[in-house]
């Protein structure tokens, strides 16, 4: 598809440009090539209307280097997430609930881990094929940019390349460390 080649060319240029402003990517290991998503659903973080009305016990990582509550929108990895937290939906912070399919296309955000001060590259994969989980709706937008830059925008339903585009929840997986760019 001619149009698509142009697209990736543009994306390529813009990704370099967009990420170089603040950081470049240091890949720690095997990156799930082609796995990337932009989750969904904006709503004021302070105003999530349903599902988390009752107090929830925390879901800690069990590691002091990964502090916080994975059922809370304040958890450090969620700095640019938008959707229902899979940790509350039968999945975990980095895996989808049973019955869903993880989107192969991921939007990537950069969040600072308060324990080690490092900026991590977070992959916000959507889980697809099952209806809205309805639990732990969370929207944060640090680094979020308009839809004109898809790879930096969390408003898209990135249940693309999946059997169904129906959105269930979003994960926040570590895929690398980002470092401040010299230039």
């Amino acid at each position, binding site marked *: 598809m001619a149009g698509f080649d142009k697209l990736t060319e543009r994306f390529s240029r813009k990704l370099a440009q967009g990420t170089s402003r603040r950081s470049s990517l240091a890949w720690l290991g095997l990156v799930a090539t082609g796995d990337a998503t932009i989750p969904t659903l904006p709503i004021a973080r302070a105003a999530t209307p349903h599902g988390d009305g009752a107090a929830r016990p925390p879901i800690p990582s069990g590691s002091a280097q990964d502090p916080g509550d994975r059922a809370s929108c304040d958890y450090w990895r969620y700095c640019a997430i938008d959707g229902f937290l899979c940790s509350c939906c039968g999945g975990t912070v980095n895996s*989808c609930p049973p019955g869903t399919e993880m989107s192969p296309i991921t939007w990537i955000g950069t969040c600072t881990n308060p324990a080690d001060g490092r900026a991590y590259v977070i992959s916000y994969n959507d889980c697809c094929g099952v209806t809205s989980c309805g639990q732990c709706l969370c929207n944060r937008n640090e680094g979020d940019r308009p839809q004109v830059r898809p790879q930096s925008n969390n408003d898209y339903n990135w249940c693309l390349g999946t059997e169904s585009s129906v959105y269930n929840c979003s994960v926040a997986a570590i895929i690398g460390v980002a470092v401040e760019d010299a230039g």
Partner: protein
Amino acid sequence: MRYRPMGMALMAGTLLAAPAIAEPARADTAPPLAAEELPSVQTLPADYPASWVLVHDFHFNSLMDGRIAIVDTTDQVRPLKGLVRAAQFANMLHAPAKHEIYTSETFYSRLTRGERTDAITIWDTATLQPKGEIVLPGGKRQQSVTYSGTFQFTNNQHWALVANFTPAQSVTVVDLDGRKVLGEIDLPGCTHIYPTGTRGFSSLCADGSIISMTLADDGTVASSKVVENVQDIDNHPLFGMPAMVGKTAWFVSYDGQLRGIDLSGEFARPLPGTASVGSAAGGAPEWRPGGWQVIASDAQGLLYVLMSPNGREGSHKDGGTEVWVVDPVANKQLRRIDLGGVGFSITVTHEARPQLIVARPDGRIDVFDAQDGTLVRQLGATAAFNPILLAPAQ
């Protein structure tokens, strides 16, 4: 899980083209957190533990988008294990030995309009992925607020029976193993399906009788029998969903009478004698059963009945604030459990120490010790918008 990365593999490729391996932004003694492998999708144990409950979320605010929530009632941190679709006044069955869940649903080609399709979907208990589908002909499956009696097994779970209502009443006989519809049985004036014997069912009828049918191996009716005067619909109507003690169905009436019907043989056999949930002071005007799923049983054959202190004509779906534990054979009220608020549906798990599960009108689910009545844990409104039916996984 098959992935089709499409063109975005190229895009990710561009991500990989740019980076430079770099030092962490801030020096830290610990190595950085490791990259996490993707994609990753959870699976469940194919055999659900006895503490798990399948919670039917009726989802009033989007009735076509009902769900079954798989809930671990011992897990206060992650109670919700997954969702199974239960579209448009659906029904659900669970066959633990076959590791399958069945939903009986209705779909429209344009969500709310267009061509109607009724179908049974077969879901794998471990992956919650669909394994197959059996289309139900005629667009006639009964749609109502969820009752267990409109979708039931028979023939040792090889077959399912689907209640139809157009408002003509009939039952569609489905061969689950063979993935096909066997036929349809007219059932004028009778409603709900209570599995009976090895390959048959019973239904309650509008004249107060119960009818039982045995089925031939082709799904047609082999024999039938009617027992009159099983319920007095005007004065002592029975809640539609009984609690099962072995093969005996225990129904409770709007005013607390208990009616046992032995379904172990070919034909339903009402038990002789009378029993009731008993009485108590303090009702205004009186204590009566109230809620949606108001009666449950434990392995000892005791019944648990959700009771409202404001019992009167019309209160039977208002929910209740206590659960009364009754020995129906001895016709004796054993104890009362204070729910500390209104419950709407209840069930009892078959764990070694049984738990009383209570769904509240606001979606919260609470767990009580069925024996001593203490509040064991609260799961919050973490699984379903409108938990209306609770089915223990064992």
